[in-house]
């Protein structure tokens, strides 16, 4: 907790310095007012936090099984595509479809690992690209809007119930975080998962089928990332387009690290990055400063946390 807060402090300090150095002294102020300064801003932050929370959870769950899931981007897209196709059958079916599709997409990687020992670090990256091209194909081809004007789909047939700007996905994401915590810390499955991630060979001698356990972890992780894609489609964008995933899969790694790989802390971490992204959007509109400062902030948080981590492992 201390380290996470320190990393956040360092990244804020750095953004402040960047602001001063580039002649935008009010950079931090705009970031804050643009993310939590008004009801509208807070709604924006909440909406941005949802996909970050879910892709962050996906990384946390896979990590507990000993795997870095960097395939979040592809699973996010798989989830959204499935949700779009299933939407005529209703919102609930669409949500379930997004979870299944994400799990399935992630399972391709675990199958290849179990079958041919192909490292999932490589296979999940490749699956991201296949997902991106598949989405590109769909919105230029079979799923393109009837007018054929833009490379985007029609509006999706179902959507999440909304309260003002806020959609029910906010609640779903929070439930997912609590459920992940319960799964990891309060069930036998979670114990096996943690044992596998902590020490695979010890887990093996304790009678755990390590490959199967990792595969289940990856499937759950992929399911959560897929859910993120489904919610984003049904609650926010309502359409598919080429750059739909927008890097959420990779940002999930930053979220998970800031949360120190704890499912409940992921809520706070996602809220922080959600605020950063939303504030940075306002920064670009109001002060003509690039919204990339949000990306920079994410990178600095990760790097500082690695630094702290290595310091601890040296002193202990």
């Amino acid at each position: 907790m201390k380290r996470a807060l320190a990393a956040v402090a360092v990244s804020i300090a750095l953004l402040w310095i960047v602001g001063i150095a580039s002649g935008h002294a009010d950079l931090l102020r705009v970031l804050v007012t643009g993310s939590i300064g008004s009801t509208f801003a807070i709604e924006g932050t909440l909406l941005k936090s949802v996909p970050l929370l879910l892709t962050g959870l996906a990384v946390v769950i896979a990590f507990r099984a000993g795997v870095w899931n960097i395939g979040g981007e592809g699973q996010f897209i798989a989830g959204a595509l499935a949700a779009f196709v299933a939407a005529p059958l209703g919102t609930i079916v669409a949500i379930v479809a997004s979870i299944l599709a994400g799990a399935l997409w992630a399972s391709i990687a675990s199958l290849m690992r179990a079958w041919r020992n192909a490292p999932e670090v490589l296979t999940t990256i490749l699956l991201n690209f296949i997902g991106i091209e598949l989405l590109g194909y769909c919105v230029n081809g079979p799923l393109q809007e009837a007018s054929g004007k833009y490379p985007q789909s029609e509006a999706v047939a179902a959507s999440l119930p909304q309260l003002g700007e806020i959609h029910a996905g906010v609640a779903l994401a929070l439930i997912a975080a609590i459920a992940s915590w319960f799964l990891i810390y309060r069930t036998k499955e979670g114990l096996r998962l943690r044992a596998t991630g902590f020490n695979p060979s010890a887990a093996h001698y304790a009678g755990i089928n390590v490959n199967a356990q990792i595969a289940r972890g990856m499937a759950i992780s992929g399911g959560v990332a897929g859910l993120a894609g489904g919610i984003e489609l049904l609650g926010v964008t309502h359409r598919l387009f080429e750059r739909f995933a927008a890097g959420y899969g990779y940002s999930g790694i930053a979220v998970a690290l800031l949360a120190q790989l704890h499912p409940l802390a992921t809520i706070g971490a996602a809220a922080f990055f959600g605020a950063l992204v939303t504030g940075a959007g306002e920064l670009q509109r109001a002060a003509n400063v690039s919204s990339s400062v949000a990306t920079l902030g994410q990178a600095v948080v990760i790097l500082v946390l690695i630094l702290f981590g290595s310091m601890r492992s040296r002193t202990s």
Partner: protein
Amino acid sequence: MIELAIIATVPLLLAVEGELIVQRAGMINLGIEGMMLTAAMTTVLFGFFGGLAGALLIAVLFGVFAIRLRADQIVTGTAINLFALGVTGFAYREWNDRLAGAVPHVDSSAIAVAAWIVIPIALALMLWRTRFGLRLRACGENPEAVRASGYSVTMLRWSALIIEALLVGTAGAELARTGFAENMSAGRGYIALSIVIFGRWKVKGVLLGSALFGAAAVLQYALQAASRGVQFHLLLAVPYVVTLLILCGIAGRVRAPEALGK
């Protein structure tokens, strides 16, 4: 058309050659994407050598974390990509006027010849015909053995990283010939990573892989121009699917360096 493909593939190919060396030395540098992007920007700002310096800077960042601090390479690489994307995106908006123009540049056809002929030969000789190359590859297979025979894995990996930075810096410079644009590396770093696998960590293999990926990319533009926009995305997915199959050993035997990523 073929000439166009050969020239257009040069940045990708240079990146592939850099990543091949690094992976042979046992590291996965995902940050190659950010390295290329940074080099592209520093080339436009400070010229060709500025590009090399930009790539070296990112290499040092990766090395400090991944080699010195033994941080997870995947996480470090991801952070570096976000970092480069953030910094260059920010700078682009601040200094738009300085970054939009074309840069006076070294001879592209010379670089193309180097990338396609000279460097691959040099690389193959270095990796398989010199002691240095043998030790480098040993770092990727069994670092303990390298240590036991009295060589420094740290130094060898740093040298691999520096060679990669020089190659990727050139790639970035080549990319920025007509000026800088936000996120202009556009995933080439990740593609380079895939091609190294596709080429089964061999020089001949990665040359073939780069040629195929390059051809697919050029074909895509041709198809787009002929406004058959639908199929080119599927075409672009094919190399990745093939790479996946290769990883599964379907299209021939494959063995990754034993200590890759450790």
